[in-house]
């Protein structure tokens, strides 16, 4: 039971305190483009969580393979990206094929944004971060869940103020993209300050 709590707390920390967008700025570009359209957000979320969990799961075996393949530790970083991209590609194509074959209507809907939710820095970044921080398969999976949900949280918190950031009353120089960056910066500052200026 305590192990389950530990794993859940890992996910929670990744959602709020060590959010990949707010603390590492990973995949801010995707976040900005996705937050424009609130209609597709839910589908995007589901896809992102699915890909981060599945690639997290397979990443565990990839890391094991790299460790056992005799490649020197300092050279892992050279070959790791190719292995991860291969995993991501396989998962992506298999998912597309399954959707196309069995859920064609869903496939047509998802087609517009599935590449954004699968092939982005958040998913690939999560695989790299997992390899640095995890040793057990369960940790890989729960970190995958945490990263996916954290990315969701970041998109949600940006999407809810989209209208305000693009409002006509905002000065032209700041309207849209510049103000979105400042907005994310302020939220990120609150999380950073919380983690760094805490007394304990």
């Amino acid at each position: 039971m305590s192990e389950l709590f530990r794993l859940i707390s890992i996910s929670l920390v990744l959602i709020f305190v060590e959010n990949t967008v707010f603390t590492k700025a990973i995949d801010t570009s995707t976040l900005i483009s996705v937050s424009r359209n609130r209609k597709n957000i839910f589908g995007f979320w589901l896809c992102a969580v699915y890909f981060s969990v599945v690639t997290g799961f397979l990443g565990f075996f990839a890391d094991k393979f790299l460790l056992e393949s005799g490649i020197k530790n300092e050279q892992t970083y050279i070959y790791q990206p190719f292995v991860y991209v291969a995993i991501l590609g396989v998962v992506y194509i298999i998912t597309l094929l399954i959707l196309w074959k069995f859920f064609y209507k869903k496939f047509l809907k998802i087609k517009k944004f599935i590449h954004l939710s699968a092939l982005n820095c958040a998913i690939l970044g999560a695989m790299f971060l997992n390899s640095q921080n995890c040793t057990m398969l369960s940790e890989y999976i729960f970190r995958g869940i945490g990263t996916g949900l954290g990315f969701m949280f970041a998109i949600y918190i940006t999407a809810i103020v989209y209208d305000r950031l693009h409002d006509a009353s905002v000065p032209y120089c700041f309207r849209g993209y510049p103000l979105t960056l400042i907005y994310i910066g302020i939220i990120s500052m609150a999380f950073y300050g919380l983690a760094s200026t805490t007394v304990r």
Partner: protein
Amino acid sequence: MERINSKSDILISADMLIALLIPAVIAVYYYGIRAAMIIVVSVAVCLLTDVICYKLRGRVRVKAEISTVVTGLTIALMMSASVPFYAVVTTDLFAIIICKHAFGGRGNEIFNGAAVAFLFSSICFPTEMLNYPRPAVHLSLSSEELLNTSLFQSMSKSVILSNDAASSSIIDLLVGKFCGPMGTGFIILFIITAAFLMLRRSISAISFCSQFAVIVIGTLIYCGSDIKYTLSVLCGGMTIFGMIFLSCDYRTMPKTRSSRLILGLITGVLTLIFRFYAGAENPIIYAVIIAAPFGIELDRKMLSFAKIISNAKKKRTVTAEKTKETDESGLNNE
């Protein structure tokens, strides 16, 4: 909707200004000329920056717009009495340029400028911003003399470190005589102020009360009904001050009652989490910033929910009228 929206911004700002002037006077009484100077500099920089920003944006500034003075005064009161003036100026500039004008100025702000700017400056200048002189030690304006003044950690920080109530007496806690920001600790005064502002409907009563209830109940549960510890939590870390002037700020408040209630609860819960689990020195600052965007979403959801309900009611009355008419016509035919 509460009357807060129909009341003019200027009147609300005037009420807030009156409410802030009293702690400002007490801060000057406790810390002397330096506190007065910090207040003057903060307000002046805010006003000047605001005027320049309006000019640059090509918009007309309403002469009676005193919300900028309120921001300046709020920032000044959140400062340590020994803070260097450049930190005050940086905070003011950030609050007015980035948090107010970059977001579209009056009415379009997402965050409370004072809270965000304070956080920014406290990360830029942590030693200068988060160390405090003892109260009732009058500080001079000279920076050389200031170097000889002993500075201490805030009461809030020592309470978190020791996990025990503040060492100051209850009377000292009530009158704000402890190490901390120069104008945020006078709990008795702030409770009276909150009552005054709620009666005048210048702050949202529903939001303030929900936050207050959550924080007090949560703290009592956490510390096992230790009254002094609860008082230490409320006085320290700008809790009560933040609830009145940062969290219930009408500029960033949602429009509907229900969203204000929920936002108050969210802010209260976040404050508790940040205080007791993350050990943040000024938890209300983080809670206010993180909760702010949810206020906008809550408003949107509540308004659409209210629309759905009113539409359903309209439909029901229309169908009821129709059935009544058909019944009546049926009776007439019979």
